[in-house]
């Protein structure tokens, strides 16, 4: 009985989790990624200024 319930559960759940990811989320992730890169670039600029001549960038 539990096995049958879990089988049904997995069937319904795998239906739901096989739906394509809406653009809303791929865009959001892209946006977050860009924000982070922007923040990192600023950090690096500051590092550069703090240690000019440092060539590990």
């Amino acid at each position, binding site marked *: *009985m*539990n096995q*049958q*319930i*879990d*089988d*049904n*559960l*997995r*069937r*319904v*759940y*795998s*239906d*739901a*989790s*096989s*739906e*394509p*990811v*809406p653009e*809303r*989320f*791929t865009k*959001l*992730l892209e946006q*977050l990624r860009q924000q*982070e890169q922007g923040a990192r670039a600023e950090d690096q600029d500051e590092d550069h200024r703090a240690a000019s001549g440092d060539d590990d960038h």
Partner: protein
Amino acid sequence: MIEHLPAMRAFAMSLTRNPATADDLVQDTIVKAWSNFDRFQPGTNLRAWLFTILRNTYYSLYRKRRREVEDPEGQMAGAISEKPAHDGHLVMTDFREAFAQLSDEQREVLILVGAEGFSYEDAAEMCGCAVGTVKSRTNRARKRLAELMHLDEDEGLEMTDAATLAVVQGNPAA
């Protein structure tokens, strides 16, 4: 993170039972996870971490909001009072309706333990409760599902009819 998004949406849907709300919940989860990513311990289970954020967000923000606008238990109660017909598709529909009637905590453990296959220990950690609580909650949830679907041990066998079996075997859990 993107590879876990379909599962996060399915889990959110199981909790909220509303596609629009589920996607709002997923969006909040993504933003929270992203801004707290320094707290994720590399080498641990990313999906479990994301699911934890998702369910915590649901309980802290969404559950109260939903209760204010609808009464799913009341609305759904009449819908499944008739004995289900034993046909693969109808059984699946009955299953969804029965599942929707469980409590939030019962749906949660069934997804985590039954569908995702997390251990009781992992599920307990994700839910912030004792392992024994997860076990008993899972057992009660399964029992309640069987009751809602009017299944007893004999009738249970009919769920393994050819149509149901085919779809179950043809679609292994993600």
